[in-house]
């Protein structure tokens, strides 16, 4: 039925416009403040909505004088790795769960989903200890089995390994690169595929790996792209763990770098215009990504394409 009542259309428009204003006003304020100079900002005694003429200056300062461009590169590397690892693990795990008959697959699926319940914030200290020495579980095992004691007796030294991944991209990306949410999404998608598809591939002589690469991967393009972008943005905006794990300025992602801009000098009023210009600078890439890919994201999460 097509609604012809103009009143309803008008009401809907008003509600939508109100919503848009509500969502966009912080962005507008950020943009306006970013155009002001520090002196204007201090003179106004707080946030003022009068546009200034220093946007280019501010951006140029961010781009040339701060470490943010280098940190944007770090962000790209970290977000891409996080997203790629998440997608790869979830995809292969779901493949195993859906296409292989196993008595325990329901239990494994439940356990996978249960990992959603443990946020990284909760285990950040333990995670730090592990990343500070990835060989720690090995050392622990050696001690526990008495093997260390034995080797100390025989060879004079107890084995103790050190492998520090703090302040490396792997160390920053790996702990936040687990996602069972994707398992959910991929599972629903796989179950929507024709049931005979893997059997047809088996008849055609394709083994499981061949089926995964030739059939499943191309078919899953849409949900894969959607979840990839989703997790990319998740990786881009992750703050707490990178703050803890990255100690050198170069390795820090842009979000952490941005927070450092605000607290450069103790006694000064924070350079809010510079901070806002930095925020614009940092969010530029994710915004472009969403703008370009939004149709694919919606499509992928709807699972509409079969």
């Amino acid at each position: 039925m097509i609604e012809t009542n103009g009143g309803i259309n008008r009401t809907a428009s008003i509600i939508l416009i109100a919503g848009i204003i509500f969502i966009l006003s912080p962005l507008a304020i950020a943009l306006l403040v970013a155009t002001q100079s520090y002196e204007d900002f201090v003179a106004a005694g707080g946030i003022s909505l009068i546009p200034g003429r220093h946007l280019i200056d501010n951006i140029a300062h961010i781009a040339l004088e701060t470490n943010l461009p280098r940190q944007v590169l770090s962000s790209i590397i970290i977000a891409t790795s996080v997203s790629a690892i998440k997608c790869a693990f979830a995809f292969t795990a779901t493949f195993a769960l859906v296409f292989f008959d196993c008595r325990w697959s329901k239990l494994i699926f439940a356990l996978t989903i249960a990992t959603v319940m443990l946020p990284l914030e909760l285990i950040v200290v333990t995670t730090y200890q592990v990343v500070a020495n990835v060989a720690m579980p090995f050392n622990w095992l050696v001690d526990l089995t008495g093997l260390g004691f034995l080797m100390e007796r025989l060879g004079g030294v107890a084995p103790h390994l050190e492998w520090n991944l703090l302040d490396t991209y792997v160390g920053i990306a790996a702990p936040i690169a687990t996602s069972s949410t994707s398992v959910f999404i991929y599972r629903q998608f796989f179950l929507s595929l024709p049931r005979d598809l893997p059997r047809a591939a088996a008849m055609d002589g394709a083994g499981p790996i061949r089926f995964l690469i030739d059939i499943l991967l191309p078919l899953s393009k849409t949900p894969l792209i959607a979840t990839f972008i989703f997790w990319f943005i998740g990786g881009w905006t992750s703050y707490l763990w990178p703050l803890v794990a990255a100690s050198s300025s170069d390795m820090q992602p842009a979000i952490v770098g941005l927070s450092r801009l605000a607290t450069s000098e103790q006694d000064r009023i924070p350079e809010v215009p510079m901070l806002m210009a930095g925020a614009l600078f940092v969010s530029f890439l994710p915004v472009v990504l969403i703008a370009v890919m939004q149709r694919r994201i919606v499509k992928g999460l709807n699972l509409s394409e079969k």
Partner: protein
Amino acid sequence: MGNTIELDQVSKAFDGKTVIDSLSAAFEDGEFVAILGPSGCGKSTMLNMIAGLERVSAGRILIGGAQVQDSPPKDRGCAMVFQNYALYPHMAVRDNIGYALKVAGVPKLERERRIVEAARIVELGDYLDRRPSALSGGQRQRVAIARAIVREPKVLLFDEPLSNLDAKLRHGMRMELSQLHRRIGATSIFVTHDQIEAMTLADRVMLLNAGRIEQFATPHDLYHRPATTFVAGFIGAPPMNLMAVEGDGATLCLPDGTVLAHHAHRGPVTLGIRPEKIATGRGALTAKLLYREDLGSHSSLLVRLPGGQTIQIASPFGTEIGALDEIRFDFPADQIHLFDQKTGHRADT
């Protein structure tokens, strides 16, 4: 040995529940066999075991004399046409047909030649570059068949391939499948629950019930000499009339004493007669007409015998019905079938 298939004491159980029970059968080289049966009788499971998609719980499967029950599907020389076609949605028709050859490492030129040949056989030559989603149901079915024959398999397996087509298309495809089989000459097994498909297409029909073979015979024998009451009741539309009678050495009588036919059998027995073999308009028996359908070619009558049993009669169109809806008929002695009442097996061998 050719492309014979032999099943030797094959059993299949899922979680302790027996689906196929120690089944043995042999399929000849180049034969077209239909596996027919009600849903859940194990016919698809059997096809999957021959294809290698399902493992046997016990027993041996031999294709061309070689044991294959532990081999993966690709080493058995079987190709399969699936009920829902199971085409690869992201590949053009050409790549769908050629995928098996690509996996097998057939050189590109040779592959192309065989794809074109297979597409020509199923008359799909003009559609090679289309995606499956741009094809009709019948065309998708043809792609599925081309995909199966392109490998020149020893054995062609069909899993209810016509059940997704509309009635008119199904009739056409039936004819084409029959011609295709004659042309390819591969041993073909066709699983269906539609007895008309089984009877028209197959050289022999294996009728399965609850994981056992009820009868494995030509369509003619299945219809004219059913081995059990299950076969008699499954084949034919409407199915054979079955009633419990008592033989005294000369006649077969209903429990109320009505003499139905003359036969030398003694003791209780199940009498069967096909609706269209009952002679109407004359004879010693009378029954009351309950319901009548005129189908043009013949009339289908449901009548009640004096003892209360109802039977189906197919009589020539326009049969005279007497006053008070009484109908006279006769069971010709050469048209009656006798079955053991306990086992259901044929008694008049």
